[in-house]
């Protein structure tokens, strides 16, 4: 497991019903691409987050599949509709099987 993985998510505290809000997410992760070599010339194995999903009360907002070409500390910005009060669930899936979660509640 990559060490020091910490998700950060920015969601407004409240919104009016049906409003489109901007969500910004960042997770600290080295995103080792598998292309680099260490000092002895051995390839460093790939270790990335390969999938990110955002759901609101169980409904998908966005589902992103990532390849090694995504930068270190993957950052995403997107827009979501808020039909009612509820909770956003953010999930990151690591290559090694780890899953990182974050939740943010929003009021209407």
């Amino acid at each position, binding site marked *: 497991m990559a060490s020091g993985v910490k998700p950060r998510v920015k969601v407004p505290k409240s919104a009016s019903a049906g409003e*489109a*809000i901007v969500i910004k997410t960042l997770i600290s992760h080295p995103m080792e*691409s598998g*292309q*680099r*070599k260490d000092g002895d010339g051995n390839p460093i194995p790939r270790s990335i987050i390969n999938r990110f999903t955002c*759901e*609101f009360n169980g*409904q*998908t*907002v*966005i*589902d*992103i*599949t*990532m*390849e*090694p*070409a*995504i*930068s*270190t500390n*993957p*950052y*995403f*910005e*997107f*827009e*979501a*509709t808020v*039909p009612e009060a509820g909770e956003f669930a953010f999930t990151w899936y690591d290559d090694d099987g780890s899953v990182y979660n974050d939740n943010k509640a929003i009021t209407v």
Partner: protein
Amino acid sequence: MDFTRRETLALGGAAALTFVLPFRANAAVDDVIAEFTGGAAVGDAGVELTAPEIAENGNTVPIAVSAPGATSVLVLAAGNPTPGVATFNFGPLAASQTASTRMRLAGTQDVIAIAKLADGSFARSSKTVKVTIGGCGG
């Protein structure tokens, strides 16, 4: 100037390589596109890709895709060792089919976005990004 048989062969081999290598890179991109579209024709309108003209650091190149009504958008970097970058799948609660992120580019190359639109058709947009320092390690 006389060429020995050996020199001629070496020259021919080198020339063949220079033709084959770019072709292989393009073939990889075409394969990924064909897999995404299922071989369907790809139009021009319907997807917008925002990327800087010049990126100083290939390790973090900010890009944004916008494709109104699209169900998914595939982003490719034609000149990277592996062309795939990311696939954005938009769910029912996505307010707009836009997203932005940061990607790695190995060098100056085309970045391609292909969107699957609501009616099942596909749209393509591409942009050339000049990279001063590549983003694939050494």
